[in-house]
């Protein structure tokens, strides 16, 4: 650490200098909107980058069935152990296996995106841009298969469009 100069040791001038920076930002935010870093969330949608890892969603095949084959590669790669899948035998022998239940514990999830990378079928994505998950009960953060598929979601998400992009 560098030793303080005599000027810095006086403290008062440095405090004033700092206050000047704070006041300048305050005035800019208060008066003009140029260069403002503060976002008016939630009135204005937050800008997230395209690669932002938001809440998961499950994709569908062309016939509307879940793309997921319950191979468990996402659950295997998940470092937070938050994906719980139960596989089952599908009546169609060419499909063979499908997820009877697919639950993500969003409270345990660390949003690392390894599940998306691991998926061989592009069945799980994190491109919804949703980062503000809210619920009144912890149980409501156990997102079941149909919610992740978009059945119980606002239409824009169900159609695969992230709401805030």
């Amino acid at each position, binding site marked *: 650490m560098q030793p303080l100069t005599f000027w810095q040791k006086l403290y008062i001038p440095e405090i004033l200098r700092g206050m000047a920076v704070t006041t300048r930002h305050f005035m800019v935010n208060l008066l003009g909107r140029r260069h403002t870093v503060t976002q008016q969330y939630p009135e204005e949608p937050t800008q997230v980058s395209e690669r932002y890892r938001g809440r998961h969603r499950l994709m569908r095949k062309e016939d509307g069935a879940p793309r997921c084959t*319950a191979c468990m*590669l996402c659950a295997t790669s998940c470092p937070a152990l938050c994906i719980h899948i139960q596989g089952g035998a599908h009546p169609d022998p060419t499909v063979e296996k499908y997820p009877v239940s697919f639950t993500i514990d969003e409270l345990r999830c660390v949003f690392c995106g390894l599940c998306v990378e691991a998926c061989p079928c592009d069945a799980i994505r994190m491109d919804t841009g949703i980062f503000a998950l809210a619920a009144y009960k912890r149980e409501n953060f156990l997102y079941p298969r149909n919610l992740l598929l978009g059945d119980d979601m606002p239409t824009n998400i169900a159609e695969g469009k992230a709401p805030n992009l």
Partner: protein
Amino acid sequence: MAKKLTIDGKEITARDDATIIQAAHEAGIAIPHYCYHPKLSIAGNCRMCLVELEGRPKLEISCNTPVVDNMVVLTNSPRVIEGRRGVLEFLLINHPLDCPICDQAGECGLQDYYMQYGLYHSRFQEEKVHGRKVVDFGPDVVFDSERCILCTRCVRFCKEISQTDELGIFERGDTAQIATFPGKQLDNPYAGNTVDICPVGALTSKDFRFKIRVWFLQETKSICPGCARGCNINIHHHNGQVYRLKPRQNDAVNETWICDAGRFGYKSINETRVLHPQIQQDGALQHVSWQVALEHAVEALQRHGGAAVGLVIAPQGTNEDHYLLAKLASEVLATPHLVLYPGVLGDEDDFLIRADKNPNTRGAQDMGLPAPVTTTQLAAMAQAIDQGTIKVLYAIGANLAAAFGPETVLRWATQLDCLIVQTSNMVSGHEQAHVLLPSATYAERDGTFTNFQGRLQRINAAFAPRGEALPAWQIYTRLASSLGHDWPYVSAEGVLHDIAAATPRYAGLSYAKIGDLGYPVTHES
């Protein structure tokens, strides 16, 4: 006369009738293979075990080439690796590559060897030949002909081991496939083994299908408690849940097989468990602490003294349990009313399945419990209860309703002063118990079983007992302590130490000495 040969520069002495693959495996050199199985005849059709022999122009299959003196074998030369790569390319031509939904993924011979010898860049551009998917072969086996590499292990198993001949190869060329003969089902009592020996995902078990991916499973060495044979098994479990049992090789007991009844015997570990000590209160069983339950039991045992206590024991426990139980009966309770009730005899065959469906009837007698009684001999005990000589009945692992009849148990529930039932699973009749003590299953505890041959074998705890269940020997130790006898036992191995000191045939034995494959205690050691 043994033969000397060199494999990969290593001097090896092999049996006279050994093949190269056997000699190599005995010397610890692994040679990739699919169709070769040590307990089946040689088929030589997968071509995966190719090796290079000095002085021979072509690669030879090691599974069907007998060893010759001064033979020089190379198992990993560039030519051999190229050969294996070619074989794998052929085997995978029509393979569907559906590993993500295939139950075998993670323990698949095709995956494992492809990682080592794979081509990685497929040259195959034609249309794959499609086969039959999800073909129902029998009660537990599902077949997928696209994944099959026609190694014929399952066909040979049904011909040579189960000797039931359900399977065969039909058609020719790229339409050749395994199938059951018309009108036949793969339903022999050993059918599950075909799934074990299938090196790929062609045969899968309906029971295990899609339950869990194999890489989540942990293995614990154990012994099947389904009958007196005591087949060596591995318990495959995850998070305290057992998903399947697999046979473990022990040539003295079960070679590499187990029967289907044993294979599906794990369900009692997961289901219908008694998890908490319970006592009868207000007309129903109520959960209580171990202390309260034992107080209830001990109070009744003390009130009437040893002579009024009857014990019905099923030989399901380990030697450690039975040793302490015999000690409890003779030293602490001093009761003459003691019966070892093995239940009714079941099916038997000349291969693995034994009629006695208990794992430790022989061990129970070695530990000082009486000889097993038949159902008719139970009448004496029933009479003693009806006459009021026995006022406290302590049933250990025994199904009272099956032994004495459900009405009798119902009558005794009011007639007896105390009915103590110690069990790991709830069966009909147990709800009449005055005191219900939960005991741990074989997957949750250490111990030893002595099979019908007199072979002492170890079971190991795969996970902690569910709920508040305790290994039986701990329950006896707690009971003895409540009755004023402080026993020094803190582990099952400590009990075995005492058994080794007290029983001549078990002298000097420890868990380390018994090992994974057991130890014969048939003669004085």
